[in-house]
């Protein structure tokens, strides 16, 4: 990250404080408007094929005691972030929460981490600067990459050049919190295979799938963290790698695919920066459950509701998804990725994935 970017982030933050200053001077009630971050205010942007916030805004105004406290905290946080950028330090979201305890003003201290997290999101949205640029990071998500990729990461202890197959152990290369500090040096991969569960990721690595098919195996670890989604997008955009997503065969896993491909509610303001609309879904598809006669669990009521609501979800409004979801509602069954093991440990790497990837035109 360049010094320009830092300077820019700092200026944006100070501009925000100056806005409050001007509001005071004009005799106005200090306030700050941010898009409402709820499901109802998420819109599908047809142009970029990702999820963005709609027109609804919530105003944080000093009109009420609550609002005034929020703004006071915002100003204290701005002060802290500006200092942090000045000193080129960084901190985690959780650290910010604890750090507020040290502020001289009790009214400005956070009462929960949700509060500080949400305030950082507010600041991101209002200033147009990502929290990575504020030098705020989440706890490590532990997501990894394994595959024929050679990269250079700027760490606090200098530059490191790493090959994601040769320089790493079986665990793979751990994705840093701010993947924008990475330069891609060389890549022999043909495609990206993003995998939901750790068990399946380990199976693929053990079976040497990355080597055999020149695949970059990205471990999502459930709902993927921002960094995982960001690096996936960069790999796709910069190295022109097709992205495939391999998850369990249930409605919640389809949403993992959705957030890789189209963005999530909490970070809809960053969808264009995080989402990869070209990502393709491998499975487990409901059709696979039928075709491979996989071991299943029955759908629970909440599973069914989730499927129903996906039917009306614009992300899944394609013939493909409608067909699959309706099929699943019909068979009332779901299967995990690892249920493929019922056909043998190599079935997934020898048969299932090659067949699916071939069908999808990836290999």
């Amino acid at each position, binding site marked *: 990250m360049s010094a320009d970017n830092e300077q820019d982030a700092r200026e944006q933050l100070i501009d925000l*404080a100056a806005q409050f200053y001007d509001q005071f001077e004009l005799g106005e009630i200090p306030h700050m408007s941010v898009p409402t971050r709820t499901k109802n205010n998420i819109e599908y942007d047809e142009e970029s094929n990702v999820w963005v916030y709609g027109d609804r805004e919530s105003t944080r105004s000093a009109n009420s*005691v609550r609002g005034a406290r929020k703004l006071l905290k915002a100003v204290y946080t701005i002060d802290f972030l500006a200092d942090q950028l000045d000193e080129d330090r960084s901190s985690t979201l959780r650290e910010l929460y604890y750090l507020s305890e040290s502020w001289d003003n009790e009214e400005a201290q956070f009462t929960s981490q949700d509060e500080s997290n949400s305030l950082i999101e507010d600041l991101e949205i209002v200033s147009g600067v990502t929290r990575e640029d504020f030098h705020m990071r989440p706890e490590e998500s532990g997501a990894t990459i394994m595959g024929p990729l050679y990269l250079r990461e700027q760490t606090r202890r200098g530059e490191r050049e790493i090959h994601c197959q040769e320089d790493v152990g079986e665990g793979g290369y751990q994705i840093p919190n701010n993947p924008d500090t990475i330069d891609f040096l060389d890549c022999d991969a043909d495609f990206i295979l993003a995998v939901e569960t750790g068990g399946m990721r380990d199976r693929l690595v053990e079976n040497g799938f990355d080597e055999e098919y020149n695949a970059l195996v990205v471990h999502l670890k459930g709902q993927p963290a921002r960094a995982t989604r960001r690096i996936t997008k960069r790999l796709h955009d910069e190295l022109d790698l097709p992205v495939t997503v391999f998850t369990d065969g249930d409605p919640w896993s389809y949403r993992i695919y959705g957030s890789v491909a189209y963005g999530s509610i909490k970070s809809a303001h960053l969808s264009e920066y995080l989402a990869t609309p070209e990502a393709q879904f491998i499975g487990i598809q409901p059709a696979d459950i039928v075709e491979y006669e996989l071991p299943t669990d029955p759908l629970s009521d909440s599973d069914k509701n989730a499927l129903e609501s996906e039917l009306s979800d614009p992300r899944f409004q394609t013939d493909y998804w409608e067909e699959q979801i309706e099929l699943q509602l019909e068979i009332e069954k779901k299967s995990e990725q690892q249920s493929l093991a019922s056909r043998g440990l190599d079935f997934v790497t020898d048969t299932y994935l090659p067949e699916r990837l071939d069908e999808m035109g990836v290999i």
Partner: protein
Amino acid sequence: MTSFQSTLGEEPGIAEELAESQQAISIAEFFEKNKHMLGFDSGARGLVTAVKEAVDNALDAAEEAGILPDIYVEIQEAGDYYRLIVEDNGPGLTKESLPKVFGKLLYGSRFHAREQSRGQQGIGISAAVLYSQLTSGKPAKITSRTEGSDEAQYFELIVDTDDNEPEISVEETTTWDRPHGTRIELEMEANMRARQQLHDYIKHTAVVNPHARLELREPQAHFKFERATDQLPEETEEIRPHPHGVELGTVMKMLTATDSQTVSGFLQEEFTRVGKKTADSIIDAFRDRHYGREMRWRPPAVHESTEPRSADTSSEQHPREDGDLEAAVTDATANKGADATAAFAEAIAGAVDDRDRIAHHELLAIVDSAAETVEEEHGTTFGDTVRENAVDAVWLTLIDELSEESDEVATDAETTTDESRLVGDLYELVDEATSTRKDDEIVRAFAQRLAGKFADAADDDVRHRVTRDELRGYVDRVAELTEEYDDVAFGDTARENVVEEIWDVMATVPDDPPLVRELNGDRDATSDLVDAMRATDIMAPPTRCLAPISADLIEAGLEKEFDADFYASATRDAEVSGGDPFIVEAGIAYGGELEAEGSADVMRFANRVPLVYQRGACATTDVVKDIGWRNYGLDQPGGSGLPNGPAVVMVHVASTNVPFTSESKDAVANVPEIEDEIELAIREAARDLKSYLNKRRSMQKRRKKQNVLGKILPEMAEKVAEVTGREEPDIDDAIARIMNNVLVERQVEANGDSQSVSVVVENNSGTNESLEITDIVSAEPTALPDDATAVEMDGEWFVKWEPDISSDDEATLEYEVPDDATFDLDVKGVETEKLTVKQ
């Protein structure tokens, strides 16, 4: 209570009555046996009761003479006894009236009066005198001075307990510093354990008698209660009893005593709110009860026009024509000549057919008038016998009992399909009265049986005259038969509806009511009269016999005795209970120095007399406990019972006859009408309390918000200045706006030798605001606009400006002052919580 009270009024007095029947018992024994009833059951209580009776008497004496009461109460320790002294500034007493007032038990000028007064039963002060005499053996010492007399009279008074006769044992003249008034000194066995009740009594008396000055001196303490108003309570007038409030026994006695001959005269003379019209209504109601009503049947002509509606039965109907009636009359009239007879018959038949319905007495009138008309035209005399015959003939035709054959038809009506007109008539009424769900056949069967009842009754009284109760008896019997034979429910409501429907078409009879002397002693008839009086709508009794304290004076009284933040009061309109008019008033004091811990105080008053004992037995307490005080912003543990918090609730019941639970007059009885009014009065006052508390809460909230924001915003401004590296911003305008406040700001600009001043008022609140702004300037202001004035006082100029500013608007006052002037802004008209002043 009412009956006891009003019956008592006619008796020589309960004490004498009891003493007479038990000749060996002296008045002292009577007192001893009944002292709990009279409030003298213990030494502690006896003292309070004695004070209470003496003070009530004193207040009444002064008020009756139009004097603002000034009352002094002293309690001294006198050896083994206590000495009670009560002085008033009333008109004083003469030697003749004195023994009666203080000596004779159950003497009282107001014993029989329907007028609001403190003492109602004449037991009061004389009981205290007797109590002191019985316990200490000392006489009552009375000093009295009438207005204008040079000297005061001193008496010592003893009651002869054998014959309840007071005796003056000492009589001399003395000097006294009061120009007029009465002083009574009683020594009695007592103690001061009920001191709290005594204080309550005096304090509460001061609250409800804001026109009185009270002083209480005890061995160790001294209290003064000054008056809050010079306005005496309105004088009350005595009224006659109201017809709704008298009992049978009372009416019987009144009948014995009255000079009136007729019932109508009696009602108008002896009762309030009864004039000719009301008396007529009562007498009609009496007739209905005493004589019953007569059934009105439809004449044949009406039947023929209405009957075909029920097509299924019309074919089976006896063919009848108008001719029947004429024929009947003709048959019954003998020896009157063909023309006259025909004219007579035609006149009767015509008149009957013209009517929609006809009762027996109405037929009588028709026959009489027909007879007179024909007599005039034909010169033939139609005597009583002829007329009676004609009436009988027509009436029997009308009710289908003319001949033997038709008699059979009528009695067999239930078994044959034939129907008499009676059935048709009744069917119509019953059908109207019962719900549509009742099967038509059932209704018809019911009507047939009911017609049978009427037919049976004709054997006793051919006129079909029945009282409502008898009619109900018919309907009950018929309904039971219907339930038995037709197996359908015929419930109470349905029965009552049928009775109501039939009773409505029946006619009140024109019989003259009995004369007073006939009624006198006839218990049943008198009972009918009392019922009739109760059933008739009569205007509420006049309220000039009542003297409520009035809402304003209640507040004044509360303000005088309680240092609270808020006072509310309500006076209801007069209502009637048991013939006695009454008015309920309520007052509430809240906050301030009132005790915040524990439950609120309830002060109870009856006719301006505080009730200090038997709180739990009193209707007032019950009502206060039943009100959901949480709705009115007071704390109420468990949602019922006395509310908690710094509050005083007072209730005053003013009535010509307050119903007490006992003779000691400590608690108001649970009379529903009075309870309702108490509740409404309290709720009325409580509503004001609620809006006060709401406002106070919203102001508290505002203050809290202001406090928090007043801390947060400057800190935010400071931090913003720190982050942006600028001067600290001015946040007053923003705060005023946030608080929806009214911002008053003065700006001063140097303008050569002088200064231009502008006072800007910015109204950020949601309502229009009217402000009174005073800018106190140390030099003479010039160039003032027209709507502002400047007044000089001691070298300072008061610039007054009273702008009205609508919501979200602003106004500016501009003027000039010399260079060295100083200023001081004073703003009124806006709550301080809503005001921000910057100068």
